[in-house]
């Protein structure tokens, strides 16, 4: 800076000769620098927006497939001799018949359908026909039969899941070329699937099961669903809501309205701002050491997840609640105190209701943060493979469950590429939840925002 005036005076005599209408070299250079600088700024914004768009686009294109699923519609002859050897239709007896028997029944049904449509494909092997439908399909049929033993002996239409590779073929993930190299499918099998689809027996339609099913094993990506994860996340959010809102609001009221200026208050304040910046995984370690190893709560339980997330969101909620309380003008408090209210009455009757919209907005944003948090949940055992739904409240809080973001992580660790599609689909579900929560927060702010 200091040398600029010097060079200016040195350049001054020369510039006098030039016309005012014509820019000299130095001005041109400065203007070019100005334009460049502006461009850098615009480029920075463009890059960040592009990154956002690419991120959302990849997740959407990868995950859209998870919401559609291919089913084979076949009439299954439920052979009484295989499924109910004693013939007394007693569910307890029939429960002893394993899924392998149902697999045989289904196999026969698939062969019948192929014969009925007179489909002939060169080099089609038995494995190709058997592998057409999901291994989960026999369990599906078994559950249905055990629910209604009267079906045995009849021929019933079933919509059975097709295997992951066949499903992938209709979504474009598996092609004839990749099938050549794939041990789990073959071009002949895909041809068969195509023939069946042409005849209307195999359809790809919206996949409600993705939202309601439990997780499935490594071999059956087509049957994996988010039901347990959504329920687990919901339980955790309940715990967070019930604990963090009253505690957070109470703490903020104390710190903002009552706390005397002393060392203890200072320590608490510094503490809260530091806690807000502690890496989330450290909270996971705390949960593992304190809640599971020390107190002895069960692993993978939503209550532990909820407690850990509560501790994590408390700083966020306290910080936003204090901002909301601070925004209420002192005249409100003074007026209440002036007509004889106690300090507590002025806060509870006047300040708190006025600060409510701000508190709610902050709370929803804190909850949204907690919903997407993954790392601490990994440490408290929520990665476990959970096939059973947790019970209803309040006992279900102690049952093992999964959580949406953890389910995503879980699926990324599996070898079958079909799980990547499922993981992206799960992220879409997660993002939809987050979007709803944020829209609610924005709506609340718009509706109740007050300027003093």
């Amino acid at each position: 800076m200091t040398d600029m005036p010097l060079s200016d005076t040195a350049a001054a005599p020369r510039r006098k000769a030039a016309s005012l209408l014509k820019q000299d070299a130095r001005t041109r250079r400065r203007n070019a620098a100005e334009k460049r600088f502006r461009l850098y700024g615009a480029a920075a914004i463009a890059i960040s927006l592009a990154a956002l768009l690419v991120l959302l686009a990849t997740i959407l294109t990868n995950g859209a497939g998870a919401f559609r699923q291919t089913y084979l519609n076949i009439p299954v002859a439920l052979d009484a001799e295989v499924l109910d050897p004693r013939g007394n239709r007693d569910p307890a007896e029939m429960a002893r018949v394993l899924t392998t028997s149902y697999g045989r029944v289904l196999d026969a049904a698939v062969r019948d359908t192929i014969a009925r449509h007179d489909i002939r494909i060169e080099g089609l092997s038995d494995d190709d026909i058997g592998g057409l439908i999901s291994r989960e399909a026999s369990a599906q049929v078994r559950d249905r039969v055990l629910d209604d033993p009267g079906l045995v002996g009849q021929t019933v239409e079933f919509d059975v899941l097709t295997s992951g590779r066949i499903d992938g073929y209709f979504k474009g993930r598996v092609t004839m070329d990749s099938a050549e190299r794939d041990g789990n499918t073959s071009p002949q099998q895909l041809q068969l699937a195509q023939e069946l689809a042409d005849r209307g027996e195999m359809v790809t339609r919206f996949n409600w099961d993705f939202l309601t099913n439990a997780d499935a094993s490594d071999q059956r990506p087509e049957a994996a669903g988010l039901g347990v994860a959504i329920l687990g996340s919901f339980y955790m959010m309940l715990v967070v809501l019930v604990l963090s809102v009253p505690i957070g609001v109470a703490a903020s009221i104390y710190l903002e309205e009552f706390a005397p200026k002393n060392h203890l208050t200072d320590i608490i304040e510094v503490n809260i701002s530091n806690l807000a910046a502690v890496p989330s995984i450290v909270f996971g370690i705390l949960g593992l050491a304190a809640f599971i190893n020390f107190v002895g709560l069960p692993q993978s339980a939503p209550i532990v997840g909820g407690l850990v997330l509560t501790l994590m969101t408390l700083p966020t909620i306290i910080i936003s609640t204090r901002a909301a309380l601070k925004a209420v003008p002192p005249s409100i408090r003074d007026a209440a105190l002036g007509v004889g209210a106690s300090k507590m009455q002025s806060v509870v009757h006047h300040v708190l209701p006025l600060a409510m919209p701000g508190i709610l907005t902050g709370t929803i944003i804190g909850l949204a943060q907690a919903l997407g948090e993954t790392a601490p949940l990994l440490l408290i055992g929520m990665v476990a493979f959970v096939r059973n739904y947790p019970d209803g409240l309040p006992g279900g809080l102690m049952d093992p469950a999964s959580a949406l973001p953890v389910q995503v992580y879980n699926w990324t660790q599996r070898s079958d590429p079909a799980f990547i599609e499922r993981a992206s689909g799960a992220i879409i579900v997660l993002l939809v939840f987050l979007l709803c929560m944020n829209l609610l927060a924005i709506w609340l702010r718009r509706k109740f925002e007050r300027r003093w």
Partner: protein
Amino acid sequence: MPLSWALFASLLLATAGFLVGRSRAFAVAGADSRVLHSRPTYHGYSVALTALLPALAILAIGTILRLMDMVPDAAVPVVGILALLAAVAGLGWGVTRIGRGFQARNAVERMVLGLLMLCSLIAIVTTVGIVLSLVFETGRFFQVYDWKTFFFGTEWTPRFQGNSELGIVPLLWGTMYISLIALLVAVPIGLFAAIYMSEYATPRIRSLAKPAIEVLAGIPTIVYGLFALITVGPMLRDYFAEPLGLGSSGSSVLTAGLVMGIMLIPFVSSLSDDIINAVPQSLRDGALGLGSTPSETVRQVVLPAALPGIVGAILLAASRAIGETMIVVLGAGAAAQMSLNPLEAMTTITVKIVSQLTGDSDFNSPETLVAFALGLTLFVITLGLNIVALYIVRKYREQYE
């Protein structure tokens, strides 16, 4: 919930206490309620609170002791009965307090204030809990493993049979390398975005671009992790690593660094935006009035004035980057090695905490306990960065207030 009956009964007792207290206050007052210090409702609340609070305390302590197996199953009803007795005693005492001279409102407010204070202490309890759990388990780790090897060892090869090499240096290297790349991405982009938005953008563009960038901050890190795993990683591998012969793995330092950089952009930009906006307009007006272009004003006046705050923001971003978990778990790989090649897979402290603590872990083996030592190291590093950053930011704010 074995004690829910006791909780329910105490709540009932408290409600009863409220009604009794209020009616008793009415009775004491007679026709003229002005002889009471407080309104009858407050007398009701005071009885309800004296009945409820001791019962709740007993129930809470009992539940925790029960979970820690210090109370046998058979004694659970005893806890419930104790709680109920306390509630009844509290109720009785509360009722006897009611009288003309009793300042019920003050009593209630004192109790509520105590509760509020208790809630604000939870923040401290959390920190103490974190520190205690980390320090305690780290102490156990150093009993079975030499601390010098941990802090200065350059080998990380945990084995299930024991005899593991657990040196933190390669993990620290990976953490720092990835964070550096992330900051190299996030700081220029975030800073320029903030400058553009506060100095150049029309209000319309600002009102569109600012929330859009902040959306990036609201996206959970697992989403970024998946993005690194399925898009950025394979892309870098196919277009850079393999043609250049620098590596063949999808997960690499560059993958994790780039994606983490994107995650940090909104963090840097919103913090810097605040800081740049806090620079007084008079400084800008002075520079512009002397004939400097807007960019010269930014570079030579606004940025130097905002520098301490921006440094603080960068430090906060660095602490974020160091503590970030999901992106590196999915994007950086698991191989603990020290190399300069950014297209090779490396690993970080957080990745190893996750891998040592998930699955079946034996809490006596050094392979599991090392995670706590790693956690403590992480905690100390991020805490240090945060304290310095917050100090700088606060100092800076005071300068212009």
